[in-house]
């Protein structure tokens, strides 16, 4: 890595052009900001909404129950978030300091270092952090004076904690968004539900775009018989209404979060494949691809090192819409009762509790989770529209 700080006039890259165009709209930036806030909430959920205090003094000794009660998953999420944020800052620093020709190599090295640290860290955390069940009622302890100096998180309720005495309470000062039919705090469950929605959106779309890119690249590059067979497969996948296909698979497979992510992923790759196929058709006959072929590069390199970076733009837009779609499908599945099991909060499943078995309409149980789904889906859709406008060369002003 050579850092040449004296010459910074490298011109604007394609990415920078897109970013300039994208960030010229205040709405786009607001949506991006909203999604960043959502991610922050998802990562810090146990610190925002938890019935364990951050600090408490019991019998003259300081305790930190919240940190003790965090699971290995919580720590893994934190680790992943820290690595993600670090990567973003490293890339930004590189774009100022490193020569554009060296940038991809540097970037790959950083990504591969993180790709080693992350799984290793997660495995270590899963092994070394024991599952502690802390059933102490710290609030009762503070109330009757056994403990002092307690600092609770902003929403002092646990998402799995039931409180039958306070069930079906409308929003009030104690429970800002009310309580559900077992007395859990709606706001707290909403905050923890962010994790499910965002992770489903990301993992499902990750799976679908990897499948779609590989299929589309092979179809577009080879054409002919392979393309014909691939198109028939796509036709079959697209003929069955996606939601029916998904619930058919859900019916036969065990219901877990991971399965739902995989099912959404393997059923929604068709549009990615079609976009990439169309791009690769155009690229196949261009000089740089012909040069790469005549140099005898391995197929993997031709497809993914040389062609893919030039044809990825439409997929990027599709990915953003795909995240919105996956979040919607997950909520719909949970709404119908085919999603994650009840103690784990999910927006769709909370939404379905609004009309009780007696026909009573508990509006706060439906309204707030629905609003959360709506805002998230809208933000991703707006982001997709903004990105499409920024990437579409027809609309870009002459620079």
């Amino acid at each position, binding site marked *: 890595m050579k850092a040449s700080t004296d010459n910074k006039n490298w011109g604007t890259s394609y990415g920078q052009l897109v970013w300039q165009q994208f960030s010229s709209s205040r709405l786009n930036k607001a949506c991006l900001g909203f999604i960043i806030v959502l991610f922050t909430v998802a990562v810090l959920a146990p610190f925002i909404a938890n019935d364990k205090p951050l600090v408490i003094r019991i019998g003259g000794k300081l305790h930190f129950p919240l940190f003790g009660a965090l699971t290995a998953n919580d720590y893994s999420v934190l680790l992943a978030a820290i690595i993600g944020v670090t990567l973003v800052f490293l890339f930004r620093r590189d774009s100022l300091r490193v020569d554009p020709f060296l940038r991809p190599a540097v970037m790959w090295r950083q990504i591969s270092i993180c790709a080693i640290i992350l799984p290793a860290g997660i495995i270590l955390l899963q092994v070394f952090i024991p599952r502690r069940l802390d059933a102490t009622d710290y609030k009762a302890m503070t109330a009757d004076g056994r403990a002092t100096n307690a600092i609770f998180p902003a929403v002092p309720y646990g998402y799995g904690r039931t409180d039958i005495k306070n069930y079906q309470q409308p929003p009030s000062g104690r429970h800002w968004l009310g309580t559900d039919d077992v007395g859990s705090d709606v706001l707290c469950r909403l905050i923890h539900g962010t994790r499910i929605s965002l992770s489903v959106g990301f993992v499902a779309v990750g799976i679908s775009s990897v499948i779609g890119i590989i299929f589309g690249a092979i179809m577009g590059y080879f054409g002919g018989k392979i393309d014909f067979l691939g198109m028939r497969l796509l036709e079959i996948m697209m003929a069955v209404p996606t939601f029916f296909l998904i619930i058919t698979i859900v019916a036969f497979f065990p219901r877990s979060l991971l399965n739902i992510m995989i099912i959404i992923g393997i059923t929604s790759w068709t549009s990615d494949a079609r976009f990439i196929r169309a791009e690769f058709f155009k690229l196949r006959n261009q000089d740089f691809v012909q040069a790469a072929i005549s140099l005898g590069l391995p197929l993997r390199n031709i497809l993914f090192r040389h062609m893919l970076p030039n044809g990825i733009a439409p997929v990027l837009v599709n990915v953003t819409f795909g995240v919105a779609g996956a979040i*919607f499908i997950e909520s719909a599945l949970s709404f119908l009762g085919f999603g994650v099991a009840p103690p784990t909060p999910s927006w769709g499943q909370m939404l379905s509790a609004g*009309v009780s078995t007696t026909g009573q309409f508990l509006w706060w149980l439906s309204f707030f989770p629905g609003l959360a789904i*709506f805002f998230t889906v809208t933000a991703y859709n707006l982001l997709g529209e903004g990105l499409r406008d920024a990437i579409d060369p027809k609309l870009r002003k002459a620079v």
Partner: protein
Amino acid sequence: MTTYIIRRILLMIPTMLGITIMVFAISRIAPGDPVSLSMGPGGQLDAQRAADVRKARMALYGLDKPIHVQYAIWLKRVVKLDFGDSIKHHRPVIDLIAERLPVTITLNLISIVIIYVISIPLGILTAVRQGKFSDRASSVVLFMLWSLPSMWVGQMLIGYFCGPTFKHWFPPAGLSSNYADALPFFSWLADRLWHLALPVVCLSYSGFAYLTKQVRAGMLDNLRADYVRTARAKGLDNWTVIFRHAFRNSIIPVITIMATLLPAMIGGSVIIESIFSIPGMGRLAFEAITTRDYNVVMAVATTAGFLGLIGLLLADIAYAIADPRISFEKIE
């Protein structure tokens, strides 16, 4: 034209075969087989007898044969429209589908007609008024409608308009009132429409927003084109230019959108029918999954695939009629 349609229908056969392979594969890849499910842990039997019983049952259900033979047997029955019996209803699955399918098709047809009737004029209007306040306001509203989750809208509508808690303007469930069969025709129709109003609203608003956006975009492209300027320069009046020239040319994408709209709506009817307890195919699928009625699940998936294919076929035919440039002799 006829040859085109016949050829198009013949092309559907391999795709339909592919759909049956996919449905069959899903049911067989899944962990656990029906025999282990029906036998349970089998505590009393000793190992030898359990194995024997297992073998006998496998033979009974034809599960001991190789997978492609099993598929052939299943396909032979499917072609004869025999999907087996429903475990929950103790009736042939095909009867259930025949009962439920018309409901879903009616619901979707009404919604599609409403979508097209409203969004085409609205799309033209907003395109003509591009940049004015009414255009910008409507595009914000349409965008929000497009992103609204249908289960939320359904739940809120039921809660506010069909329940004891707020207003009781609409019935919360079903297709008709208990006494509906005794009513004269027009009262019966009114009763049916009263029951269908909210589900149709839920099913159509998102497609309506999407189509309006597409009509607007297509119109804008054409209104900017040179031939429109020529038409105006000729001295034609504004609405003639818009309808005879610009709209005619932007109608083709409007038709092809049906091919994407229809599968989405059929999929969406699972949610809508479950919320409003409408005895259609979506609700049948929902009930079948909750009761693990696998014969019904497979039948519904196959039928849904068939419906999707029909939708694609209709869109293709409409496309061929609308665009005179398409030659009926060649298929790309």
